[in-house]
């Protein structure tokens, strides 16, 4: 029997006390993914600390002209917030492209960052999985891997990160604010999630005794030229085969700034700064976008069933950049 204790934290300090020194402790907020994983016997925490009552549920302006999204603001409230919609339309679209209305009402921004992969083998305790049981092997390599990674995978893990929201956050170069026994710190979005390497069981660089308190959006929201494109097997409520957050600033037909991040293709939201830089100074046209797409996918590799994703990702990048270039209003 996997017994565990359950407590409710009333303050951040309270929550940290609960977390410190208990390696098997998990914080639970919206709970939509963690409870699912505990049910499947994939995650086996011995302590749960419920943090839903912490005062991390506001969206506030930052001194730098951006927005601070509290870790406990729900995905729904974030997507529908008028400031987010007008200043960061790509983020709002990405959130609304994910999950369902019920889940967006429950899921929190912090929880969205920390959701685990949807790899079939991660969930199936009857198969090997290095993310679930380090050293047991990878069932997806050589198995059914249509939904798996084409970028940044390792011989130990080819799982993908399932979030839509995080793809937009990567493109926006958000920062994650965390707190722990060593105090507060800020993690650039790109450094928050990890590639699998030889330790695929570790998804993020959040320390076990830290909690996420907020996501900071920089002032630059790319409201004029941005989009989120999600290619999936059905029209709604399905994980992405490939998704693209694309954002441009354009002056006189030339790209002056670019952001490009992909979902459904890697162990983390996949932002490619080299591809972005390749766009700067070029005309905002199909030829430039093709160069960027090739750059993103230069090291892409399929594992059989997911080979199609390489070409699909190229096509999706082109479409997203074209849509972003064409869009004028959120």
């Amino acid at each position, binding site marked *: *029997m*996997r017994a565990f204790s*359950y407590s409710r934290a009333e303050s951040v300090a309270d929550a940290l006390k609960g977390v410190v020194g208990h390696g098997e402790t998990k914080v639970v907020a919206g*709970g939509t993914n963690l409870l699912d994983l505990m049910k499947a016997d994939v995650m086996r925490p011995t302590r749960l600390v419920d943090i839903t009552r912490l005062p991390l549920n506001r969206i506030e302006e930052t001194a730098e002209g951006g927005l601070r999204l509290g870790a406990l603001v729900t995905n729904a409230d974030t997507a529908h917030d008028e400031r987010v919609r007008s200043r960061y339309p790509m983020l709002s679209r990405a959130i609304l492209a994910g999950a369902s209305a*019920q889940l967006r009402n429950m899921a929190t921004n912090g929880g969205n960052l920390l959701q685990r992969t949807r790899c*079939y083998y991660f969930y199936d305790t009857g198969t090997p999985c290095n993310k679930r049981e380090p050293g047991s092997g990878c069932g997806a390599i050589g198995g059914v891997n249509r939904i798996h990674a084409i970028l940044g995978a390792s011989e130990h893990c080819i799982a993908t990160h399932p979030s839509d929201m995080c793809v937009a956050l990567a493109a926006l170069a958000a920062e994650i604010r965390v707190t722990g026994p060593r105090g507060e710190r800020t993690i650039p979005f790109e450094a928050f999630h990890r590639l699998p390497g030889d330790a695929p069981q570790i998804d993020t660089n959040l320390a076990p005794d830290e909690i996420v308190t907020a996501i900071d959006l920089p002032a630059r929201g790319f409201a004029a030229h941005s989009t989120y494109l999600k290619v999936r097997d059905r029209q709604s*409520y399905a994980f992405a*085969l490939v998704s693209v957050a694309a954002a441009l600033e354009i002056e006189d037909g030339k790209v002056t700034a670019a952001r490009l991040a992909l979902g459904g293709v890697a162990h983390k939201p996949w932002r490619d700064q080299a591809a972005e830089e390749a766009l700067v100074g070029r005309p905002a046209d199909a030829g430039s976008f*093709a160069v960027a797409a090739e750059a993103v996918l230069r090291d892409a590799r399929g594992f059989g069933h997911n080979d199609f994703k390489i070409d*699909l990702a190229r096509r999706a990048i082109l479409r997203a950049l074209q849509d972003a270039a064409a869009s004028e209003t959120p």
Partner: protein
Amino acid sequence: MTGTIDRVGAAAAETSFLLNGRPVTIRVPPIRRLSEALREDLGLTGTKVGCNAGDCGACTVRIDGRQVCACLTPVGQVAGRHVQTVEGLAVEGPAIGGRGGHEARLTRLQASFHRHGAAQCGVCTPGMLMAATDLLERNPAPTRGEVEDALGGVLCRCTGYRKIVDAVMGAAEDGIAFLVPQAGAAVGARVAKTDGIAKLTGEERYGADAMPADALWLRAVRSPHARARFRLGDLAALRRAWPGLAAVLTAADVPVNRYGIYPTGKDQPALADGEVRYRGEAVLALVGDADTIESLTDADIPIEWEPLAPVTFEAARAGGAPVLHADLPDNVLVRGRVVKGAVDDTFAAAAAASVVEVETAFVEHAYIEPEAGWARRVGDRIEIVACTQTPYMDRDEIAHVMGLSREQVRIVPTAVGGGFGGKLDLSVQPLLAVAAWRLGRPVRWTYSRPESMAASTKRHPARIMARACAGSDGRLLGYDFAGDFNTGAYASWGPTVANRVPVHATGPYHVPHVRALTRALHTNDPPAGAFRGFGVPQAAIAHEALMDDLAAKLGMDPLEFRHLNALRAGEPTATGQVLEASCGLAACIAALREPWRAARAAAEAANRAGGAVRRGVGIGCMWYGIGNTSLSNPSSMRVGLRPDGRIVLYNGAVDIGQGSNTIMVQICADALGLPMDAFDLVTGDTDLTEDAGKTSASRQTFVSGNAAERAGRGLRAELLRRLNVGEDAALRLEAGCVHARDAGGERTLRLADLEPDARGDVLSAVGTFDPPTTALDEDGQGVPYATYGFAAQMAEIAVDLELGTVKVTRIVAAHDVGRAVNPIQVEGQIQGGIAQGLGLALMEEYVPGRTENLHDYLIPTFGDVPEIECILVEDREPLGPFGAKGIGEPALVPTAPAILNALHHATGVRITRAPATPDRVLAALRAAGVGVTP
């Protein structure tokens, strides 16, 4: 397939919250799912559980007004909050009749659902209502798109969503009054479901509802391997380690451990005996208290596995594979054959010939209600309360498995939260019976979603090679079909598929020369069984691709080519049967002609402008024999008259959402000449109702409807005789009397003066009907069905050539239903069938072990199902009740062909491997060198 967290782990603690406006306090572990607490601890079973993973939305409730999944909400998180469930929706307003004479109240939204026929099986309805209530509170006049977004997290497998959207949009309309047809005007009326109110208030009881509080829990331990030998370890030690275990059942505990649909196909064990043949097969049953059963994980069970290489479909087709069942050395379960004329000669002489290869996948029924039920022993009888499509077959099968007489078995079917063929096979019943019989205590079992998907039957994957030819006059000459069907590990309904497909292989056309051969092959895949259409939907993809291709080769319009070749009354079918009436395909096709021409022209004009998104318009036609193939399948219905003047219809036909509880009353009422609202229904008990067969093969309206008509006419004849009035007398019920008026004046029969029978009826009549068919000879010649449904559907789609995505934008469906007994329900069947056909065409593919949940196995959502126009063609069937025949399966069959043909129209590329997912569409475009290559 392991234990869950619900009942274990954290210690109980008090949680207080408002529940439907009233303060409650419960003492449970704060991590318990809210859905479980509502259902098990607070007795509110209106909140349904379909997946326990946030994928289906059936458990949607409102917390502080906002819709959430109760299955993913820990009880501890609702402290101090307001939880609203379906039971809390209607707290004021006028009372109307509810379940069993209860007074029920409805909100305008619920009333609108009732009026629009938005609930079929009803198991998703509470979730839909809660999501819609949240929307309407914030936005009283939503657009269709806003409705689809807000409700998009609740899956429905029955309705195709259109009537739900209509109901939400129409919720602002006044009133909760519903149509009550006059005597004699019930058939053809758009009357609301007779059992509809309970589905809207949460009162309806499905398999997992109303379990006895003292029941033991049962859980099966299932094989993680597709093929393996296994040895059980020390079960006595397991019992000692887990004192809460009341029993650990093995194969040795099952009296007759082989069951199956056909007398010759009793090959499936309730518990595997040393060898498993598919992943998900049950090997042990654990019975005990809830905490123990929920805490035990597979890792706790001593089983030694010896995995073996599984037999794949490819290996079975090739021959020489390991043998699954010793009596079938080539793994061929059954061969089907229909041969007429000299097909090979026709191809040599034809003006045009086409060939197609079709490949389809396993498709999961994905009813939102997982299998569930409970059983108890009463003296020397066993009683099983469970969701099922076939209580009488269950009764006979359980008698067989238990070694009891059929009189010792009582089956009490609950409301069924969707079936589509998947609840025609035994699921929870045999092990519940064995456990309850041995232990003398009630035992309950609800499948988890992964268990339901792993253990239950599937649609047969097919590999089809077909060719057809036509003359220069455009008339079909020959059709040559060979189809292999993956029937999985056990026989189930495999023989039905293998025998039904050859009869239907040509499609609904007149073809002089036919050869149609099928094989059902055993593999180490899940048993493939009955699924809406029994193989005909797979075969239809082939014949409709061929019709399009032949039309193109002959320079004919695809619709006109089909119209020319449509089977008409007086022409022989492939089995030599000549339909004399109710052969309405040509009329269905003609009904599509105008929208077809307009849509084809519009699409072609749009495509001339170029761009990445291309439009296409396709057509699909079908036919479908109603009832069993060349087998007797009788139904009986009893109608009785009470001393107080109420009429009781003893209705053994199980309503799985399709609406037979309403149809049977409509038919019987008009046959009797008395109004529907004088009727009460007795359903759901093999002890109380006559055998109305199974709810499958689209047979209930036609077969049981005929029985209901005959019962009604029988009771009417008896009344007329006693009243001594003529055939055309008008009957009226009033104050316990039947009044009859004819040319001779008015006469009265006082019912209280008559002696009631054991049921309490003073008069009653039984009607029976068995469709007239003949056996098929060795060439498949004969009369396999008494009547057929026909249809033509047209699909409009948009294909993104760059991304490979396909969006269906509109479907027009013309169906010959003989007579629409209830047009709302016929439309509901058509729309729901279309949604399933769309899933088959574009997204559904079950991969054992990998897609055993509703986020990896995708079924259509609100956003996937387009506008659907239904055209009802009523070419009366003389044998049918008031001219009616079936619609359940016909609705699904033409949709996938129409969509795939539209894909061809849009792109010039033919995809015959379903589902046509974006990767397959892109691959096909690339292979053909078609499309915009950015």
